[in-house]
């Protein structure tokens, strides 16, 4: 075998090993940013907890927290107490909380909202278009949108109080430092 071919062989095997070793850095449940950093898609959806519709225009210029949930989703139930607490904390302020029911029926969603004390406005995304435009991978997923309408961060999986508060504070006090761009629980 020529010297050249020998060298190629060594380099190929070495690169293979390096690539495989580097792959350990990344957790398999990695974060794909997708829509983070882009303007949030505008939407108008039917309200879950009453007649009429809710439009994202209503939240224009404000800090918005969008939470995708469903009644069949157990981690959603787990994260709900944290959402309730943080919502109470910011109720008086102009931070907008909106819950989007995802792949669920109206009745089940309504029951969930009532049983779990979901006090913020909720809408139903029955065709999944809004979830698609936000790039939802699976629920629960929470998005943080700044007053300029850009998605600043997202959290995949059940969210805890600390992450929620930090996300909101980052938006209310711009450039505050370590703001989550994309994160996941686990």
């Amino acid at each position, binding site marked *: 075998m020529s010297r050249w071919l020998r060298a190629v062989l060594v380099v190929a095997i070495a690169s293979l090993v390096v690539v495989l070793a580097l792959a350990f850095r990344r957790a398999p449940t990695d974060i794909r940013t*997708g829509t983070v950093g882009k303007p949030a898609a505008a939407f108008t959806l039917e309200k879950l907890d009453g007649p009429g519709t809710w439009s994202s225009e209503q939240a224009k210029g404000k800090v918005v927290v969008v939470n995708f949930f469903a009644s069949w989703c157990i981690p959603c139930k787990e994260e709900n107490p944290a959402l309730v607490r943080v919502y109470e904390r910011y109720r008086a302020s102009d931070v907008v909380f909106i819950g989007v029911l995802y792949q669920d029926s109206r009745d089940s969603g309504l029951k969930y909202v009532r049983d779990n004390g979901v006090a913020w406005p909720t809408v139903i995304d029955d065709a*999944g278009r809004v979830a698609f435009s936000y790039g939802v*991978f699976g629920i629960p997923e929470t998005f943080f949108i700044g007053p300029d309408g850009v998605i600043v961060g997202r959290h995949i999986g059940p969210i805890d109080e600390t992450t929620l508060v930090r996300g909101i504070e980052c938006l209310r006090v711009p450039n505050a430092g370590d703001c989550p761009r994309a994160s996941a629980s686990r």
Partner: protein
Amino acid sequence: MIERARGWKSARVALVLALVALALAVGWSARPRTETPAERVDRITSELRCVVCQGLSVRDSPSESARQMRDIVAQRVAEGRSDDEIRDEFRASYGDWVVLAPPLASWSGLVWLVPLAALLVGAFVALGRFRPPAAGAREPSAAELAQLRERARREESLDLPLDAR
């Protein structure tokens, strides 16, 4: 002799006819056809990745998310969007990860060259093995004979019990 010649002739004719028929069949099956909208949706969804599955395409997955995505693609096809526009919409939401094979005209599209490169390299190595047959066998020299004998002895010592001398 003439019988055999005729036999050869008809065999050759059959061979040629068969090859022609084969070419026709392949050509017929490869004829360009316009895609129906449903086929177009199938094709596009087979190239998009279902976001809640382990590597399945949007077309193959029976999940609800995939069904909703198929609806989106069907709607866009009905609206007259191009393949690239539809794929771009998915990529805007989910990143490049959602496309199941990188496009040809990109850096990551180099992966399409891999099979071709592998075949070429392999063919190169293989053809290097082709050597013209030895131009007449020649008597081995005494040194070569001794070498061969030594080699035979070493190979056969493998058959002897381990501690034989």
